[in-house]
């Protein structure tokens, strides 16, 4: 059945491919016999004739161009502007990924300090399969709330234990992934908001230090900033960095949600003089980030390595992990108990985490989602009776107070966010982080693009975001009837069985043990 609107592309393209040379001839004659000005068109059509000839006979790569010629090119052009067109014109407020417009605009409003009350009803897909917070009939009065305060390293009675007084911290993003202005805006904002910022695995935190905020130094698997020539940990360099008063904690990165189990490669073209200096590497050769620390090839050595970093740095030291196998983590916990060595914190990153660049297969396909990973680790630590030996940080799309409260209820002591702060800086989710072409100038080193990101105007947004998040979190907390985040448990959540977490709960070891 041929509908009247049917478009036969093949016929159209044949028509176009014949018209182009025909028009060329028409304009050629007009140029010759009527007015030489017609030759402007003659030349344009000559160009198209030649291009079409190349598309259809010379090149062998593109099927559409070979079959349809110039008409096919239109498809490439339209396809290339498709994502932007869809984002601006067609995408509904709740369907973009990773963060939809609703979620983004909540962050923008918080960062710009605009009231985020909404009217009439929720924009969320309000089906019963969403995790919700259970409120109480008797909310906590404002005065009864205990001020937020947790101290990393108190379990070991450290001299340099570190106390945070606000529930949210800036998660690891390396200088390299971020440009200078972005790092400095975040760092200045962190200072304003009095929260710590994680340096990411970008090596020596030169630009962070300029703004004098509290820092968590991250040791990546390539040990940028604290490495020996063959990529192992250099104790003296670590001790030197740790002795800076701004460096308050050390985070060993075991894995990250966006690419767990995957190393990385810093191509030699990207190694500028500055990067080489900050990261402690040589120019002219690619540098490999192995998928795991070379020092940590067994469970015993892994725990010993944590001990070594704790001893050398003298600071609260923990690790960041995206959970893969629970059984493996269980063995790690047993080894910690055997050696009596505990990290001061564990940062649990969900597979939904972001990155500057990672293979799509890993971004989409590897690792446990945050809620399941966090619940598993919390359960495992409790089962072994060592939950009180350390703090838990959680990260993975925790950009709204609602999601953050859920993480608290599942055991987190503090929240880490990376992209929440990028959005506060003005990120428009152009998805260009790996290309050095970020239109907002956040993940680029191009001075032209960074120009728009004025540090003075961006830093207050970070502080606003933190302030407004904290405010909303406290309101939510009061609604649950708890006085502090540490009182929250899964009892405060409504977890439908068809969510990832609900499903996991139905099959988790505890439930099965209880049933048998």
């Amino acid at each position: 059945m041929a509908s009247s609107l049917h478009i036969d592309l093949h016929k159209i393209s044949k028509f176009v491919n014949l018209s182009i040379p025909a028009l060329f001839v028409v304009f050629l004659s007009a140029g010759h016999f009527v007015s030489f000005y017609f030759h402007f068109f003659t030349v344009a059509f000559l160009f198209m004739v030649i291009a079409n000839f190349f598309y259809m006979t010379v090149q062998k790569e593109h099927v559409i161009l070979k079959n349809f010629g110039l008409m096919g090119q239109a498809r490439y052009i339209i396809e290339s502007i498709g994502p932007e067109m869809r984002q601006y014109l067609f995408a509904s407020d709740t369907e973009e990924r990773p963060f939809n417009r609703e979620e983004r605009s909540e962050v923008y409003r918080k960062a710009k300090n605009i009231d985020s009350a909404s009217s009439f009803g929720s924009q969320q897909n309000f089906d019963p399969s969403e995790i919700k917070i259970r409120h109480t009939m008797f909310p906590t009065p404002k005065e009864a709330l205990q001020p937020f305060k947790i101290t990393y390293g108190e379990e070991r009675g450290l001299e340099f234990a570190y106390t945070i007084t606000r529930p949210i911290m800036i998660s690891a993003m390396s200088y390299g992934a971020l440009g200078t202005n972005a790092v400095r805006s975040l760092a200045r904002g962190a200072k304003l908001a009095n929260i710590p910022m994680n340096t990411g695995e970008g090596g020596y935190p030169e630009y962070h230090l300029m703004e004098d905020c509290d820092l968590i130094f991250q040791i990546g698997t390539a040990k940028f900033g604290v490495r020996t020539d063959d990529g192992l940990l250099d104790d003296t360099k670590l001790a030197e960095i740790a002795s800076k008063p701004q460096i308050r904690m050390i985070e060993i990165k075991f894995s990250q949600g966006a690419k767990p189990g995957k190393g990385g490669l810093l191509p030699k073209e990207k190694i500028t003089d500055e990067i080489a200096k900050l990261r402690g590497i040589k120019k002219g050769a690619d540098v490999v980030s192995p998928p795991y620390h070379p020092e940590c090839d067994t469970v015993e050595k892994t725990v010993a390595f944590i001990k070594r970093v704790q001893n050398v740095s003298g600071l609260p030291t923990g690790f960041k992990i995206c959970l893969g196998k629970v059984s493996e983590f269980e063995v790690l916990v047993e080894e910690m108990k055997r050696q009596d060595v505990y990290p001061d914190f564990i940062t649990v990153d969900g597979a939904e985490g972001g990155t500057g660049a990672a293979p799509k297969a890993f971004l989409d396909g590897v690792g446990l989602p945050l809620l399941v990973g966090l619940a598993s680790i919390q359960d495992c630590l409790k089962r072994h009776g060592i939950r009180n030996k350390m703090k838990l940080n959680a990260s993975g799309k925790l950009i709204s107070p609602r999601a953050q409260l859920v993480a608290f209820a599942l055991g987190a002591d503090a929240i880490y966010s990376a992209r929440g702060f990028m959005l506060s800086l003005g990120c428009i989710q152009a998805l260009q982080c790996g290309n050095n072409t970020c239109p907002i100038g956040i993940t680029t080193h191009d001075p032209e693009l960074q120009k728009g990101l004025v540090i003075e105007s961006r830093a207050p947004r970070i502080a606003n975001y933190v302030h407004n998040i904290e405010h909303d979190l406290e309101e939510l907390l009061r609604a649950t009837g708890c006085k502090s985040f540490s009182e929250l448990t899964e009892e405060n959540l409504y977890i439908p069985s068809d969510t990832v977490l609900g499903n996991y709960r139905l099959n988790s070891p505890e439930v099965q043990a209880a049933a048998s």
Partner: protein
Amino acid sequence: MKNNIISWIAQLIVVFILGQTLFFKFTDAPEVAEMFAKLGMGPFGYKLIGSLELVACILLLIPSSTIWGAILSWGLMSGAIMGHISKIGFEGNAGAMAGMAIAAWLLSCLIIFFRRNQASFIANMFGTKSSNEMQS
């Protein structure tokens, strides 16, 4: 690397060929007026073409837009060559002008080829991938 150098030399030659006539076009030199009169073009015509040639020269010298300059100069030179074939002829001075136009035309083709990756619709002509595509 080598292609880059060859392309730059070609760009400079084209800029020189196009550029050296601009002064005469914008000052209404009698030779220019006479030659364009054969094409039925007055001062508006040769100043329009002169302006386009100026744009082409500038684009050719800006690294990120070289290909657009080359396409423009290719088009202008195609027109010039057609003018010589159909109306102006190759006698005397006109022959030298035609020779330069042909040289600039050939060099423009060369530049377009060497810089093909700057524009995906050109890169596609040769089946290579443009730099934008490789990134994502």
